[in-house]
């Protein structure tokens, strides 16, 4: 069996490992546009500011491909998929045949046409190369000043990295507060405070209308409201979207992302997809969504890989979640942390103690989201509670206690979890 994987990242690796485990005789080819051995995309900001060196950037050991009998075609871009012929076409015209194909092409940064955005000093921030380029750029300047457009996770992480490098940074966020997808207003305002306390400027409810240049070099940005901010560097980080451009004409069905069934198969036989490029069942919303996070990419990759290698697995639905830190303070957000509709059976439990802020969101008695600032101990247990869809109304008072644990949960649940192989 010939397996071809497009994308050498989180989704791809898990697909490769699943296939290699199940089909020892299979031939796997991985094709990636980026020229690197598989690396940790989500750590590029830490690489940029020098917090971690190159060795900690590699997602798998040097012998990863060899061990899993993978032919790695790195620095090669797939331009076309020909499902009829079971074949993909690369940028140089080379064709690679497959019996089963998985598309794990990830996301691409959204780059709206902002006036003045073309030219030097303008960056996106989703690849190792992006991080290296930005690092080299700011290092070449004596007093670099940067504007980061977008106060999402990637934007803020980039901004923090820049700050650590001594760059004067302003983040401009269109929404009322940063990290709208992961936080509630209270938590977001706290994060903004941390950022400001550490010398970052944060502008919210505003956006960059145009980038000003003098002789090609960036001199500043003009905000929607007319204000001007001086800078020589602009990072555009308003989000990523599934990287589906090259699928045009392939017949593979794309909505916002590639549409997949519950074993990650697309509408086309033998073609699977996983990771940021897909749009798959959302566990809580119960409808297809793009959830561009690592645990979703890897799980989808694993399910796609297993199914491709003959052991059909079923995707339980993705649960959005993220863990991140700014200047040593941590935030973890799982599921739905905002009561979307006060009348929709939502209920919030909040616990606040100094630096620690915890919030649980219940819907019809079931836990649907947890937000926790500066408290990480055993947070994952909430993940299993959300997944279990158990009714937690009876233990509301214990739910956010610092020592919350399995002994607060029903015995049957505990036994199910702890007396069987994980």
């Amino acid at each position, binding site marked *: 069996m010939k397996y071809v994987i497009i994308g050498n990242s989180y989704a791809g690796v*898990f697909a490769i*490992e699943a296939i290699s*485990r199940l089909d020892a005789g299979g031939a796997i080819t991985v094709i990636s546009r980026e020229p690197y051995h598989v690396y*940790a995309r*989500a*750590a590029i900001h*830490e690489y940029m500011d020098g917090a*971690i060196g190159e*060795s*900690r*950037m*590699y*997602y*798998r050991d040097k012998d990863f491909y060899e061990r899993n009998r993978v032919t790695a075609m790195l620095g090669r871009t797939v331009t076309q998929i020909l499902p009829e012929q079971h074949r993909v076409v690369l940028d140089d015209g080379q064709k690679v045949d497959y019996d089963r194909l998985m598309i794990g092409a990830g996301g691409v940064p959204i780059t709206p046409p902002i006036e003045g955005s073309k030219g030097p000093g303008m960056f996106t921030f989703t690849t190792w190369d992006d991080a290296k380029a930005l690092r080299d750029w700011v290092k070449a300047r004596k007093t670099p000043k940067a504007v980061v457009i977008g106060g999402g996770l990637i934007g803020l992480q980039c901004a923090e990295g820049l700050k650590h490098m001594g760059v004067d940074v302003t983040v401009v966020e269109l929404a009322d507060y940063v990290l709208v997808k992961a936080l509630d207003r209270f938590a977001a305002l706290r994060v903004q405070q941390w950022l400001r306390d550490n010398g970052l400027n944060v502008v919210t409810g505003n956006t960059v209308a145009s980038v000003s240049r003098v002789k090609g070099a960036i001199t500043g940005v003009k905000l929607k409201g007319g204000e001007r901010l001086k800078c020589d560097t602009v990072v555009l980080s308003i989000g990523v979207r599934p990287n589906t451009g090259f699928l045009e004409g392939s017949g593979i069905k794309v909505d916002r992302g590639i549409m997949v069934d519950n074993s990650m198969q697309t509408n086309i036989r033998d073609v699977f997809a996983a990771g940021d490029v897909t749009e798959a069942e959302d566990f809580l919303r119960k409808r297809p969504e793009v959830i561009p996070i*690592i*645990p979703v990419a*890897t*799980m989808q990759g*694993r399910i796609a890989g297993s199914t491709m290698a003959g052991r059909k697995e079923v995707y339980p639905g993705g649960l959005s*979640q*993220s*863990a*991140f*830190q700014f200047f040593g303070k*941590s935030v*973890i957000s*799982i599921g739905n942390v905002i009561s979307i509709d006060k009348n929709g059976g939502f209920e919030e439990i909040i616990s606040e103690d100094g630096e620690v802020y915890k919030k649980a969101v219940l819907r019809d008695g079931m836990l649907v989201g947890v937000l926790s600032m500066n408290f*990480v*101990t*055993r*947070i*994952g*247990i909430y*993940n*299993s509670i959300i*997944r279990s869809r158990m009714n937690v109304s009876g233990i509301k008072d214990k739910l956010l206690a610092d*020592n919350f*644990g*399995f*002994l*607060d949960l029903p015995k049957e649940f*505990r036994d199910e*979890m*702890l*007396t*069987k*192989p*994980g």
Partner: protein
Amino acid sequence: MKVVYPREQWCVACNLCEVACMTEHSKTKDPLKAYRTEKPRPVSRTRVEYRPPLAISIMCRHCAEAECVEACKNGSLTRNEVTGRIELDQDKCLGCWMCIMACPYGAIGQVTRPVGQEERRVANKCDLCPDREVPACVSACPNRALVFEDRG
């Protein structure tokens, strides 16, 4: 694969599993020095929950499809394909707590680890005591509330 299973029914909340785990993962392998003089202090990888009359010691299940591995940002957590154990490379760990967020058992903790001159906060989880035939916590448990078993 053999992993450690808690038997809640017999756990007497003595915390000796934690002491044993801390000691096993110390430099000196001596509980007193591990606690008193080693800097940073080693931290147990199992955790005793105590809600009288109930108690239970919980550590990593070494999951077949480990969610910590799926969540780890930079591959510090991997599955050892030979032993099936879920291994954590603490020198590589970024301290991003993605694994703590993902582990459905709450089995990953944190520890301070010296790396050269600096000290890093990194993830900390059960490694099934690779230097021992029977894991330290299992040997230390006075009431067989922890067993090292293959339950398939």
